């Protein structure tokens, strides 16, 4: 309460007007927060139920703590296999994306070469094409390349689908790095490759973190291309696997809930780890 005279006169009214709405707004936003947590509760509660408990009380606390559903899902539902496949596909895609997007982003921002802007525009333009529109020719192409039912089919495709955005992200970040830093490295005798690996990549950590978060979420959760390209159990990923559990375990909802929970926990975990940095990473990366 300083001596500032005019604002002082207005402030009390503002605070009062704000406080009438304050608690209903907080209550509403709390309800939405609870709805965001609800699936985790529902899947966990459901997975610990027996089939009988599921039929009796769908919504309330489980009255049983059976682990049978996890066993059913993991072993008979092949979730262990699908989990491994999802892990391979996700780590493969992230590795390939990191290599191609940082190399590309660096070339498109800090290196001088003939045709650079035309190539950059060519890569970015594909952001405007929704990939599912291309499902028919992609399916045909994968058959022709003998990549059907291989991890490579989805690893290459997922990397390509997100490369326009990922290249944009990396190029925008690299562009914000002052040229003097590169000049200094060059003066010290560093080659293009050494400058890239020892100066640019370490500096790009925020952009690389953004890239990892969004690509892990995309790849782990992607469904339709996985459905089209991975039909054999040996390569099938979790999203396709849990959907088919619904058919196989039609009367075993607790097992389905256990499967959904297992499919969700890794990405929820990744989110919790990166959660603190998410807004900063988006500010440093996507909004550059």
């Amino acid at each position: 309460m300083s001596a500032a005279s005019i604002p002082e006169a207005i402030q009390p009214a503002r605070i009062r007007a704000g406080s009438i709405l304050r608690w209903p707004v907080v209550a509403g936003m709390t309800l939405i927060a609870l709805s965001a947590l609800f699936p985790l509760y529902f899947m966990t509660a459901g997975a610990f139920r027996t089939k009988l408990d599921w039929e009796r009380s769908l919504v309330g606390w489980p009255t049983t703590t059976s682990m049978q559903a996890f066993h059913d899902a993991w072993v008979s539902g092949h979730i262990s296999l699908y989990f491994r496949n999802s892990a391979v596909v996700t780590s493969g895609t992230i590795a390939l994306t990191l290599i191609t997007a940082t190399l590309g982003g660096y070339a498109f921002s800090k290196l001088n070469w003939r045709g650079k802007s035309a190539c950059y525009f060519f890569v970015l333009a594909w952001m405007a094409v929704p990939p599912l529109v291309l499902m028919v020719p992609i399916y045909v192409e994968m058959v022709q390349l003998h990549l059907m039912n291989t991890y490579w089919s989805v690893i290459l495709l997922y990397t390509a689908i997100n490369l326009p955005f990922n290249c944009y992200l990396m190029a925008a970040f690299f562009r914000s790095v002052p040229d003097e830093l590169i000049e200094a490295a060059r003066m010290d005798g560093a080659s293009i490759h050494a400058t890239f690996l020892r100066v640019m990549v370490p500096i790009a950590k925020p952009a690389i973190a953004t890239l990892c978060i969004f690509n892990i979420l995309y790849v782990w959760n992607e469904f339709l291309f996985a459905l089209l390209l991975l039909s054999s159990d040996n390569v099938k990923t979790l999203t396709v696997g849990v959907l088919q559990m619904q058919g196989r375990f039609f009367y075993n909802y607790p097992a389905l809930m256990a499967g959904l929970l297992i499919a969700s926990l890794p990405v929820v975990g990744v989110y919790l780890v990166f959660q603190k940095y998410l807004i900063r990473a988006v500010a440093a990366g996507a909004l550059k």
Partner: protein
Amino acid sequence: MSLDIGFNRGPHNRERLWGPLYALPAIALVVVFIGYPFGSIIYHSFTHWNGLEPARWIGVKNYRDLLHDSLFRLALRNNLLFAISVPVQVVVPLLMAYLIHERIPGWRLFRATYFLPAVYSTVVIGLLAQVIFASHGAVNIAFGKTGLTGLEHDWLGSGPTAIGVILLLLIWANFGYNVVLYLAGMSTMDPQLPEAARVDGAGRLAVLRHVYIPGLRRVIELVLVTNTITAFAYMLTYIFVVTNGGPGFDTYDTEFLIYNEAFSYQALGYASAIGVVLTLIILLFGVFQIRMLTGGKTGSA
């Protein structure tokens, strides 16, 4: 010594050589898995093609058929209904982000939980929705227990409510993305601007209107464009998992139609034509929205 001279003489020559080589893996992947398929749907949209025999050129017949296809019109109408989510996604997350930014009680909880729905797989959300909105599902049980039996309904069993459920899932699953984008945008703004406005006596809504909204113009643009594109071209998983197009054809959307024409009827040429039209619609929306927001000036990035 000679190595040294080589380096001094030609950093630019080296960049001319290594620039394209650094960019090559990205360009190659995009050409092979996006560019080539895109060329393929344009070409095949003018053909009759069942995937087994070679495609046969039939000119614009697919496009003419499309004009008279009532299912295509229904699918487009459903995409337009899904686009009801767009104004909601632009406005509500902006208000939420502003309140979180203003440290409303509970803001830490809101900031931590609001992104969670965007973390769950669409398949997980869809399967849970099936269980929850089924005729003997959680929603109806809850209505039954609280005596609101009049509100019990077979939510996925009739067209309008099934569309409503999908719309609800769409909004719920994506609003957290927009909150994060707005919060990130707010965090990059100069904190002195809202402070100065406040000292001048501006209320909360005035600060939002005159400081944050103009400052967040590019983020608002981004939210508008991405959510419109989502409503038209990223709905297939929801429909596939929640309703499978039903009841009847009531929840068909454009992508579901492409999927069905291609993989149920082997009408690959026709499916390609639908794909081309959908791409054009999305390009049109993207250009139109950016034009509208920038008042004719494009390329703010």
